[in-house]
C-alpha cells in the first residue's frame, strides 16, 4: 500500500510565548520569534501511514511545501518510518490560497502510484481545513475529511470513520485511490528512535522548484489563486475578562474569595 503524507511546518501556537503580530505589509505576520513544529494533525497522518505500511507493506512518501527549515519536520517523519520525501519551494508559491497550494502538492503527487494520500484535517495556522479535499478533486479521486478511523477491507476498499459534531462517527466505505484528511487523536504518534533519526539523515529529500512542478507562474501564488487574503486585522474583542492582578498568592486569594462570594465554595 503506497501512501503519501502531506506535512506542513507551522508556528507552535500552543507555546504561550508565541505572539502573533501583524507585519508592516498587513498581509503577513512577524515570524522572527516563532518556533516551528509539524502541524498537529499531520503528525497523526504520518503515524497512520506508518501503521498501515507496517501492516500491509508499501512505501510512505512525505510531501511538504515549505522553506529549507521545514526539512526538520520532514526528517522527523522520515525517522519515524517515512521512506522518502519531496519538498517544494519557490518564491512564486508565496500567497498561494488553498487551491494554488493543492495544485503545487498535486504536481508532486501525480507521478506517484499512490493508494492513499493523507493530509491533516486542518493546519493550525490558517485553519482552512480544505487542502486535502481540494487536492482530491484535482487528483480526480474521492476523499473523506476528519477521519478518525481507517480499516482496510480489501485491495480496493477502506472503511473510514469521519468525526462529526458531538464526536459522532460517520462510518463509510471509500474506494482507493483516495485522499483522507486525518483528525487528531486517531492514533498515538510514536517518537522517533535514535536509529530512525540516524537512518533518516541518509534518506532522500527531493527538492522541487516551480520549473520542476511543470506549473507556470500564473498557476501558483496569488495569480494562480481563486481567493486572495487582502489583509490581517486584530479581531474586535468583546468584553474581556476582569484580570486579577498580583502574584500567585494574591490572585489565588482573590479568586478563592470571588468563588466564596458566589457561593461556589
Amino acid at each position, binding site marked *: 500500500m503506497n501512501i503519501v503524507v502531506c506535512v506542513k511546518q507551522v508556528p507552535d501556537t500552543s507555546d504561550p510565548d508565541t505572539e*502573533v503580530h501583524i507585519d508592516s505589509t498587513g498581509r503577513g505576520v512577524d515570524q522572527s520569534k516563532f518556533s516551528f513544529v509539524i502541524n498537529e494533525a499531520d503528525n497523526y497522518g504520518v503515524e497512520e501511514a506508518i501503521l498501515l505500511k507496517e501492516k500491509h507493506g508499501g512505501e510512505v512518501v512525505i510531501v511538504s511545501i515549505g522553506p529549507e527549515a521545514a526539512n526538520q519536520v520532514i526528517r522527523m517523519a522520515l525517522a519515524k518510518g517515512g521512506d522518502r520525501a519531496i519538498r517544494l519551494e519557490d518564491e512564486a508559491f508565496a500567497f498561494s490560497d488553498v487551491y494554488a497550494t493543492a495544485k503545487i502538492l498535486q504536481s508532486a503527487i501525480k507521478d506517484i502510484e499512490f493508494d492513499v494520500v493523507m493530509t491533516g484535517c486542518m493546519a493550525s495556522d490558517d485553519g482552512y481545513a480544505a487542502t486535502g479535499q481540494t487536492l482530491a*478533486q484535482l487528483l480526480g479521486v474521492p476523499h473523506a475529511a476528519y477521519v478518525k478511523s481507517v480499516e482496510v477491507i480489501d485491495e480496493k476498499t477502506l472503511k473510514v470513520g469521519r468525526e462529526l459534531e458531538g464526536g459522532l462517527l460517520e462510518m463509510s466505505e471509500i474506494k482507493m485511490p483516495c485522499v483522507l484528511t486525518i483528525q487528531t487523536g486517531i492514533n498515538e504518534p510514536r517518537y522517533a528512535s535514535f536509529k530512525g533519526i540516524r537512518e533518516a539523515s541518509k534518506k532522500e529529500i527531493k527538492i522541487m522548484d516551480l520549473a520542476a512542478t511543470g506549473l507556470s507562474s500564473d498557476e501558483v501564488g496569488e495569480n494562480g489563486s481563486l481567493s486572495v487574503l487582502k489583509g490581517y486585522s486584530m479581531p474586535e474583542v468583546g468584553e474581556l*475578562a476582569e484580570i486579577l492582578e498580583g502574584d500567585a498568592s494574591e*490572585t489565588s486569594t482573590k479568586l478563592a474569595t*470571588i*468563588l466564596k462570594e458566589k457561593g461556589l465554595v
Partner: protein
Amino acid sequence: MNEIFVLAEHRQGELREVSLELLTLASKLGPKVTAVLLGSGVDEFANKLASYADRVLYVDDSMYANYVCSAYQAALSELIKKEKPGLVLIGNTGQGSDLIPSLAVELGCPFTTDVISLTLEGDKPVAVRQFYGGKINGTIEFKDAETYLIGVREAAVPAEELGKSGEIQKIENPITTEITVQKFLEYVEAAVGEVDITQSAMLVAVGRGIREDKNMPMMEELAQVLGADLAGSRAVVDAGWLPPDRQVGISGKTVKPKLYLAVGISGAFQHVTGMKGSELVVAINKDPDAPIFQYADYGIVDDLFKVVPALIEKIKELKG
C-alpha cells in the same frame, strides 16, 4: 446577483440549526434566497425551510438519506450549473467542510471556508475568517466569477424567525447513475463514561498547558477541593490524559455549569463552542492574548504551576 443558494443540512432525521442560521444570513445580504435540500422523505424539512427562504428546491431520493460526499457533490454541481446562483452558502460543519472544496473546484468557483462574517460588495462576497487559532482575523476577497462558494461557521449568525413563505419546488433527481466510490454505512455514537459532564455543577477544565500526564493529579486535587468534575480540551483527550467523554467542545460535549475553570486552555473556537454558555467562566493562562480571556468573567495571567497549588491551599483554608 440573481440569487443565493443555501444548502440545508440534516442528520439522523433532524434538520440542523446551521441551515436556519445560513438562511438568516443570506436573507440579510439582499438577493433572493433559495434553500437547497437533498434528502429522503424530507417534505417536512422542505416545509420548515419555506418559512426561511424565498424558494425551496428539493430532491427526495434514497441516495441522499445520509450524507455521502460524491453523491451530494454530483447533485449540487448539476443544480448549480443549471441555476447559476451568484453565491452558494454551506455550513462549515463536518458535512459541509468535507464537501465545499471539492464541489468548488469541480465548478471552478472561488471559495473559502470557516467564515465568521460575510458582506457583498456589488456582486462579490467579502469574507472574514480567523487565523492562528483565533488570534487574528483575515479578510478574503475573490477573483471574478459567476458563482462563489462560502463555508460559514456554525453559530456565526443566530437564526431568526423570517416569516417567509417560499415557493416549494420538488425536482427530479439530477443524478441518474449510481455512486460507487463511496458508501454510507452507519453512525456510531460517542461512548458514554462514568461521569456526565453536561450535568456537572462545576467543572475544572484542563488544557495542553499542563504539559504532561504527571501533572494531572494536581488538577484532580483542584477539582476535588472544589467539589468539581474534571473536563478538558481536545488536546488533553487526544494525548490520553482524560477519557473522550470528558472533552468539551464542538466534537465533544456542550456544558453549562455554574463554574467553568479553564486551566491552560487557549480558547480555540472549537473548544469555546462547548462552554460559552457556562454561568461563571474563570481562565488561568500564561498568555495574555489567549482567546479564552474573551469568554471569561475573571482571568489570571500567570503560570498555572504557580497559581493552581496556591489556589488549592486557599480553597482548603476557606473551607476550614
